[in-house]
């Protein structure tokens, strides 16, 4: 069975990556506007209830089916 690789390295920050991106300030501003528009739609995503099925219940459901 394949095991996933657990990543322990800290996530890179946007500032660290921006050194590599080299996108013009004007273009970043335009892209940021797009991201802000998307963020404005986020609350409904964050409030969406998650359906968590406990392993025990899942087993029971599977055996009942």
């Amino acid at each position, binding site marked *: 069975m*394949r095991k*996933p*690789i*657990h*990543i322990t*390295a*800290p*996530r*890179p920050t*946007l500032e660290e*990556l*921006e050194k*590599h*991106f*080299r*996108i013009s300030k004007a*273009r*970043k501003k*335009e*892209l*940021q506007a*797009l*991201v802000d528009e*998307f*963020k404005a739609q*986020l609350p409904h*995503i*964050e409030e*969406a209830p*998650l*359906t*968590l*099925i406990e392993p025990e219940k899942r087993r029971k459901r599977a055996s009942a089916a």
Partner: protein
Amino acid sequence: MPPLPDPNAVFLNVPYDEEFKSLYIAYIVGLYQLGLVPHLASEIPGGDRRLNRIFGLIKSCRYSIHDLSRIELSAAPLIVPRFNMPLELGMTITWANLHPSRHTWFVWESEPYRLQRSASDLNGTDPYIHNGTPEGVLRELSNAFRRDRMPSVPGMLDDYRFVDNNLNAILYKNGTRNPYDRSVFLELCWLSKNLADLIRPAGPTA
């Protein structure tokens, strides 16, 4: 000993073709969601020989993903197999065998058992099967890499759709039709990184 690779860097060995672009975007979005940083051969400027640049990039990345799902015959009039992806995979396997603690490689395919037919020497290597869909790519990225705080696959899909919907505008602004161009790749990365920094609920755990 060679210098240590970037522990978050992932070399993406993917086909640069029109049919693959949704999966390409899914890889970029998904890797950023997992706190990883994708790298593409086309992002490296400079006049050095292409193969040297690619090998340099492989060496600087801790991981690599080799998507062999588009290994097929090219269109007429010159019908030849596409060898770039297997060639780069071969280089990577050699590098990883020489320095196993510095590089880990993964093979990705669209269908089960296809790899056994296209590259039987890789028997014993379990490929990640994405079924040729962006959702499959995001699901398999979650299977390949774990973090303490994981985004849900539906959350990743939302971000994928957002970036995909903005691809045409990014292409237009950069004066190109090629989503694999350096400037387009960097802007896709920038957008994906920004989205990845949003707080998301964790998905159901299996």
